[in-house]
């Protein structure tokens, strides 16, 4: 059990609000299409493809991914796909691979996962002869993982105590806005936002000046709290424990709803990050996992995921399908991309493990 939640793990919560309104109707539809799909393919003479097991972080993400991905996949290929919500932590994947008994084909991961697992030889490389690179926003298709959705780390604040929209630099200005601040218990995005607050331009962030970022953060450490799970970040702002915080945009959206916009957020100065599909080494369904990824690149399912949980579509072709009212919360919408920095996967591949430990040491010291 890990207290430090990944973004993928957190998306489950986003459904909390919308499950009843959006999904109930959708689920009924989904079951219908599933039945049609099964009838269409069930009688085929050719051998059915192997079952694909997708591991995500549980909660409502199980239902949302079933709706967005499983139903279309089964319809398109005649294969079977199941969602396992037990949480594909790095430690579990490593154990499975070492024991040579892998039960997952696809895991809902991110740079934290592929950065640690890939170099350790615990992941299959993504087969871009099956997965279509052109259906991924440029720069988000990697050796060990391919973008599944987009999310952002953004600045949120309490409008009852901060009247004007604060800048990233204000996050470190304890005189201007006294009160505690909130950060994630992980270096990812925190270092980037700290550097931008310190004046580094968004397009010149990498390679990260880690000592500078750590020093900047350490300067206000006394007034920092750190969150592990998305729900935690949400409740700390909602309950007035902090005046501002850096958290996932999906939580920002929920906070606006929870508090009637007393708590609000901006994509300005945020960091755009990818959620990634990764394939554990020696996965049971073999290449069928790549076929599944390719099937899930269809823009329709990705828009469904945005509507359900706020995850931005990975496929640029989804843009025209996104209803205008959803564009405001879509981290991948052009007007939002413009004001954010973009994460550099290569840098993470090479440095993440070490830097994260440094960050944790800084917190604990």
């Amino acid at each position, binding site marked *: *059990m890990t207290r430090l*939640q990944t973004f993928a*793990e*957190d998306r*489950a*919560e986003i*459904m*909390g*609000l919308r499950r009843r309104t959006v999904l109930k109707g959708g689920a009924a539809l989904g079951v219908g299409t599933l039945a049609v799909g099964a009838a269409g393919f069930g009688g085929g003479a050719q051998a059915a493809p192997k079952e694909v097991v997708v*591991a995500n972080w*549980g*909660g*409502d993400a199980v239902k949302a991914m079933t709706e967005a991905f499983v139903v279309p996949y089964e319809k398109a290929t005649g294969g079977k796909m*199941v969602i*396992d*919500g*037990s*949480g594909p932590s790095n*430690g*579990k994947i490593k*154990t*499975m691979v*070492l*024991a040579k*008994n892998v*039960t997952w084909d696809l895991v809902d991961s991110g740079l934290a996962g592929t950065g640690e697992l890939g170099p350790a030889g615990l992941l299959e490389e993504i087969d871009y002869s099956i997965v279509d690179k052109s259906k991924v926003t440029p720069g988000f298709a990697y050796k060990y993982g391919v973008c599944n959705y987009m999310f952002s780390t953004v600045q949120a604040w309490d409008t009852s105590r901060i009247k004007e929209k604060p800048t990233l630099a204000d996050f470190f200005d304890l005189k201007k806005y006294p009160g505690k601040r909130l950060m994630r218990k992980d270096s990812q995005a925190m270092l980037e936002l700290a550097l931008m607050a310190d004046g580094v331009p968004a397009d010149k962030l990498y390679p990260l000046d880690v000592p500078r970022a750590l020093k900047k953060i350490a300067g206000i450490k006394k007034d920092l709290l750190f969150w592990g*799970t*998305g*729900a935690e970040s*949400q*409740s700390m702002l*909602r*309950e007035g424990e902090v005046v501002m915080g850096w958290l996932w945009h999906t939580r920002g959206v*929920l906070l606006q709803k*929870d508090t009637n916009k007393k708590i609000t957020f901006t994509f300005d100065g945020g960091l755009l990050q990818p959620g990634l599909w990764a394939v554990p080494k020696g996965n049971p369904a073999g290449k069928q996992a790549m076929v599944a990824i390719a099937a899930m690149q269809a823009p329709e399912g990705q828009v469904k995921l945005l509507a359900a949980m706020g995850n931005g579509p990975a496929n640029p072709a989804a843009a025209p399908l996104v209803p205008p009212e959803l564009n405001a919360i879509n981290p991948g919408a052009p007007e939002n991309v413009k004001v954010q920095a973009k994460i550099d996967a290569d840098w993470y591949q090479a440095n993440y493990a070490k830097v994260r430990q440094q960050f944790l040491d800084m917190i604990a010291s």
Partner: protein
Amino acid sequence: MERTLQPGRLTRSLGWTVICFLVLPILVIFPVSVTDRRFLSMPQHGISFEHYANLFTSPEWLGSIGQSLVIGIVSAAIAVTAGTLCAIGCWRLSSRAGEIVRAVMLVPIVVPTIVYAIGIYRFWVDLRLLDTYTGVILVHSVTGIPYVVITVSTALAGFDARLEQAARSLGASVPQTLWRVLLPSILPGVVSGAIFAFIQSWDELVIVLFIASRAIFTLPRRIWDGINEHLDPTMAAVAAILILLSALLLVLDLAIRRRREG
């Protein structure tokens, strides 16, 4: 003794203050469970029983309660059987070897759970026991045994060994002696052990997060899921009901003790 060192009024009130400190968080759970908001909090505008309604109408929550009950009862039964026999065996040995066995039996409650979790996860991957009732029940049996060994050993300490010898010399077999003579007199210890073994299974989260996935979704895992979603107040409703049930069980337990003490 009662008269010789009777605590003064100050000492007594301090003692009761500590008891209040112990009970305080429990009392908080009841108002939180009837909050009118959709996340864990004190009620704001009024009280609402929707979280209780959710608990009793949601197949997920009810399913988890059912699973936890089955796993808890079966693993408690295994732990009680193995643990009681073991404690009696050690007691009968009444030697250094018996003491060592008893000490070894206590190790499972001393080792930090996270360390054991990663070990048993690897083992269950090898044995294909991940996400099965068998897997979870076996683990919870093993972690329940120490509690039974402790409580039964305590009960045995107060039992006169000559009674067993008398029964044996009158021609009773070992199983007969155990069943007819020994067990009735250590029953309170066995029952307490059973309750502890059940509760530790019922409340166990860390290992289950490792070894369960799709099929097994115990109550603590459901609560954990709810916390990570949006601090789901349903868990407060569950907790409130559990506290009432525990209180009931405790009263039961105390009643048994009282009967034993005469």
